[in-house]
């Protein structure tokens, strides 16, 4: 195997690597042409964020990313007054900045945010394309390049946290899933900097875990996990210990499940 030349940490300026699986690139381009908001669905670590990065680079726009969390308020998105010296100063939030600049605004894991927070994107997501800033008493209309992208993971959230129907219906939806074996092998090999034989073994293992019937795992082995494992191999670790640290121990804390996964990994990975 030719994994001896480690692929050092890359800087962020190069072109994001994304391998299209279906027609998602064309759909996104078409939506961007019209300024339509996009909803990305897909399991954890299947490449949603990377897809948006690649598309922003492709379209030549800035990308502003905000990760949703349950304490996020609308002020975190729109902006707030801060006190400076003897007066109050308005500071734009990331959403307002994106609206003014005409950037792509990517709201990751949107359902994590409280519902009263998500409604601030409503006027931006329909024909109005404007952001009312009630604290300033003004309305900012979106610059031409502005596009709203949100992502969410349908299987992961509990029933309580689902996307409001009125929010959903403003978006066009693109569903992403784990890529097919060939594509995923290529992605893992490229991202981790390993040969395709090792990448293929990892992808085979990943698919074995994903397709388990009645699996005790909350999350399956994502492409991201496989890339992490591949990265460890590229740094000179043996395949088995890389998988043990980057996949098995990550997926579960339950000693029984870890042991059972270990057996599965041992059976599926090539013999040393």
């Amino acid at each position: 195997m030719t994994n001896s030349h480690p692929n050092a940490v890359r800087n962020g300026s190069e072109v994001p690597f994304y391998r299209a699986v279906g027609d998602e690139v064309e759909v996104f381009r078409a939506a961007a042409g019209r300024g339509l908001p996009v909803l990305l669905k897909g399991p954890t670590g299947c490449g949603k964020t990377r897809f948006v990065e690649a598309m922003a680079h492709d379209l030549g726009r800035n990308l502003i990313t905000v990760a949703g969390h349950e304490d996020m308020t609308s002020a975190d998105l729109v902006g707030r007054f801060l006190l400076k010296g003897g007066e109050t100063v308005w500071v734009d939030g990331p959403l307002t900045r994106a609206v003014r600049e005409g950037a792509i605004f990517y709201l990751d894991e949107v359902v994590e945010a409280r519902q009263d927070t998500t409604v601030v994107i409503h006027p931006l997501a329909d024909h109005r394309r404007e952001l009312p800033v009630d604290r300033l008493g003004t309305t900012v209309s979106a610059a031409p390049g502005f596009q709203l992208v949100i992502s969410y993971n349908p299987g992961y959230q509990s029933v309580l946290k689902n996307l409001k129907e009125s929010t959903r219906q403003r978006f066009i939806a693109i569903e992403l899933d784990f890529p097919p074996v060939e594509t995923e092998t290529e992605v893992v090999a490229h991202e981790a900097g390993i040969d395709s034989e090792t990448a293929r073994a990892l992808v085979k293992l990943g698919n074995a875990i994903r397709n388990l019937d009645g699996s005790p795992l909350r999350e399956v082995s994502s492409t991201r996990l496989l890339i992490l494992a591949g990265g460890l191999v590229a740094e000179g670790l043996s395949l088995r210990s890389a998988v043990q640290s980057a996949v098995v121990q990550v997926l579960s804390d339950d000693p029984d499940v870890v042991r059972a996964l270990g057996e599965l990994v041992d059976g599926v990975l090539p013999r040393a």
Partner: protein
Amino acid sequence: MTASDPKSPDRFRLLATFIAGRSVDVAEAPRGEAAHTNGQLVFVSAGRSVAEQRREMLIQSALLGAGSLDQRLVKALRARPSVARRYLALEGRRVLAELAGQMPLAATLLFEEEPSTATADESLEMARGRAKVAEPPEWFGVIRPSRLLATSAGPGARAADEELRLEFDPIDLPEADDDDDDGEQSGESKILKLFDNPLFTSRTVSDYLRKMLGNSHSPADGTAGAEMQVRSLRRAQEVGANARPLPTRIRFTDDGKPGAAVGVGGALYPEWDVYNDRYRADWCRVIDFPLTVAADVSAAGVPHDDVLRRRLARVGLGPKVLRGRADGDDLDIEALIDLFVDLRSGYSPPEHVYLERRKLARDLGVLILLDASGSATDTDPDGLAVHDHQRGAAATLAVTLEELGDRVAVYAFRSHGRHAVQLPAIKTFDQRFGAVGRARLNQLQPSSYTRLGAAIRGAGEILKTEAGTPNRLLVVLSDGFPYDDGYEGRYAEVDAYKALEELRTDGVACLCLSIGAATATDTLERVFGSAGCASAATLADLSPQMDELFLSSLRELAAPKPVRG
């Protein structure tokens, strides 16, 4: 329930599931039996090394995965052990060779010669024939056609579509109401049918009776849209194993007053029977009543635990707006005005002028369930029994939570057989935890046994009906050794586990604290799950992580459930 023994064949579960392509469990066969499978479980020989069990599991799962044990094929092997053996030898080699292409592990077990057949049907044909077939190696195990054919719909299987469909027996349908003279449409009366003579068709008797009794429906039979008749409901003889019986309330009276007026309540609760995979309805009588023994108030002292208080104060479950903060989302106009008034009058206070939303609101109801059974009497080196530790912990927890403004109740539990599970209330949700209550708790003497599942169900019901808060938590203080008459070992563990599962489904979080008990924490972990249980020598050892424990058990309710594709 999971086995915690690292050598248990349970470790092969996922690998077997992968090879078989469907959910399969692995267990040890009774001693002396060879490896086999019944389609849902793969049995490996007991007492062998892990490597030997692994290859036994591998071949049996591979047979399942390749479809070699489909009903169609296995039927042909029934009652023909020699054919089954030859079939196993042929198919085993074939599926192993097939699997070796995908799995390096199988490749290491491969035989030198090529498999002589290419499909399962071909193997079956050859097994029936007279050609010489090499004996299967011992680790191939055996094929048990009877077990494979028997398990298609075992107990506990989900209800199939035809069982769920609502069907009326035409004879039971309420008939349409007709006029007297419209004899043709009303059809034959069922009573008159009894008098029909099959031998000769004279209608004289029936005509006579019809004249006498009339041919109309009785007045109770309503028209369409009338009240539903009793006979249109059918009582189900059996319910599925997935159905959970509801507790049956027991009504008490005391001098003509209902029991609820004096705080006595109770119900018959179901119990899970793990061996038969079903609920036993109305199995345990659980009674809760106020503890009214006379107590010496001088013994009402409860040790305070500052660490615990600080930690529990951090448990926040809902957002709350805080005013006058140094940082936040919005300007607090009031604080801002104050600030400017102060500035103009020549004083410069800190600039705390923001509104902040933080998770601080609690709305938490906690029921502390204290094990008051005799199993908690072992003493530690300081001469303090496990029970003393638990009592102290219950008191400290209750006092701390009450001070923090939560709804708290303290109940003890003990049992003496399934008809006498008692939940004496030391403090109900509506009482203050006064000196008498504290003294009663401190003087509680352990006795009887531990029927944990019934106690959890009873306490859960109290928590659900009386706490009145959106967030509810059941804290069980126990040494985790469920034992009662006819209630021990695996039966008890699974029943308690099931009771907790029911509570979580109903939105009640559960946490188990084992204070002072030196042993058997693995039982607790199996019952409560590793996240929902903690054990330590004293409460003070657990205090620093109490907020984490509370939050993690409450969070479990909102946690995403695994999605089955």
